[in-house]
């Protein structure tokens, strides 16, 4: 049962409340369903709604998004058009008006599609601990989690060059459905071959992962269906069964969706 909700007015105040197991509350779209669901143990929350962590800054291609910025804020921002298809694939408007960007980093798979996009963009997180703010690659937090009592305050990344960002999500329905396979990529093609690529994959493992072996296969090669098929076979993913798809199905369709993500067909 929810026994307390603190409403700090700054990130520092929020962090000091994050002790003895208290959890940060962004939009509540992941935590609150669990609290509504069952008479569990006592839960204490620290709401970030009024902690001054909402807002988007874009300057000379550098993007900084406050942790408590809503998914709807990202969707509506004309400076982030490349993220709009990703955000619009997540849940529904009444959920996106609550759900936050930092919250999306910590939802379990097969959710966290924006986190996949941010991982492909090599986002760095501002993490607040007792000693102050430090930078952490999202990749490290996605793999290892965030230590208790620490707080993500901001997400930073460099905007992708025109046409360099790809996002593709396979789901049971066009709208408002969890992912079967999600692929986010930042890719540069020069002189007909892949000059740089960063590939994040959702739905194919219990955690959001980077397809490092696929990246290795693609690098220096032309972006053809044959090369992409080889790339799709390169990583040893362990997908899972859930209500959206079986592990078998996910493994079976991943090559198709990798190709669609990178070639559009």
């Amino acid at each position, binding site marked *: 049962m929810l026994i307390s909700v603190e409403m700090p007015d700054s990130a520092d105040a929020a962090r000091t409340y994050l002790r003895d197991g208290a959890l940060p509350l962004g939009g509540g779209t992941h935590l609150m369903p669990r609290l*509504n669901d069952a008479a569990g143990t006592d839960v204490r929350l620290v709401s970030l709604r009024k902690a001054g962590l909402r807002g988007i800054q874009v300057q000379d291609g550098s993007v900084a998004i406050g942790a408590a910025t809503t998914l709807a804020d990202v969707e509506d921002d004309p400076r982030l058009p490349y993220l709009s298809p990703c955000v619009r694939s997540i*849940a529904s*408007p009444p959920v996106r008006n609550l759900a936050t960007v930092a919250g999306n980093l910590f939802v379990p798979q097969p959710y966290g599609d924006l986190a996949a996009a941010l991982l492909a963009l090599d986002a760095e997180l501002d993490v607040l601990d007792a000693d102050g703010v430090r930078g952490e690659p999202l990749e490290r937090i996605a793999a290892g989690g965030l230590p208790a009592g620490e707080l993500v305050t901001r997400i930073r990344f460099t905007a992708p060059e025109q046409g360099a960002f790809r996002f593709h999500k396979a789901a049971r329905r066009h709208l408002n459905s969890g992912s079967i396979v999600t692929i986010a990529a930042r890719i540069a093609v020069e002189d007909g071959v892949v000059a740089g690529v960063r590939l994040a994959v959702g739905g194919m493992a219990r955690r959001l992962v980077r397809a490092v072996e696929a990246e290795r296969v693609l690098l220096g090669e032309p972006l053809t269906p044959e090369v992409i098929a080889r790339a799709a076979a390169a990583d040893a993913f362990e997908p899972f069964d859930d209500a959206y798809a079986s592990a078998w199905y996910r493994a079976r369709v991943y090559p198709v969706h990798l190709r669609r993500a990178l070639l559009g067909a």
Partner: protein
Amino acid sequence: MPSQIVTLTLNGAERELIARPSMTLLTALRETFGLTGAKRGCAQGGCGSCTVLLDGRPVVSCLVPVVTVDGSSVETIEGQADGERLSDVQQAFVDGFATQCGFCTPGMIMSATALLDRNPDPTRQDVIEAICGNVCRCTGYEPIINAVLDAARRRRQAASDSEEREPAGAER
């Protein structure tokens, strides 16, 4: 943690309540204020039957601890009609037979109202996206989508009628 006093601007009127930390906005609306239009469906944010406008944007009120929205404006289905006169969206739902059992209707109308407030000329796809979080098990959605498009037409017509009566920039 003790209960707290929470102030909301509820359908335009300032209202106060005493809330425990665990009280959701939906529970406050239904049990404290007696506004039972917003429904408790799944309590998971998945069905949309509890949709209300929070500071003008549609949200699933079952997922919002009410103490976190102290000072906010909340609009519910009960605030849509002007006395006996239904809102344009409500009237379009009635005229288009867009409601059957009615359980989803308050949330559906709030999502549709939020869409038309932001986008007076939505495409069919815009409407589908706007109500994709509102589950209806009766209608098959088509009458609802048609009603929202009809409401948009009515609203644009009303706006152009009033512009004809009072041209923009006219001295009054």
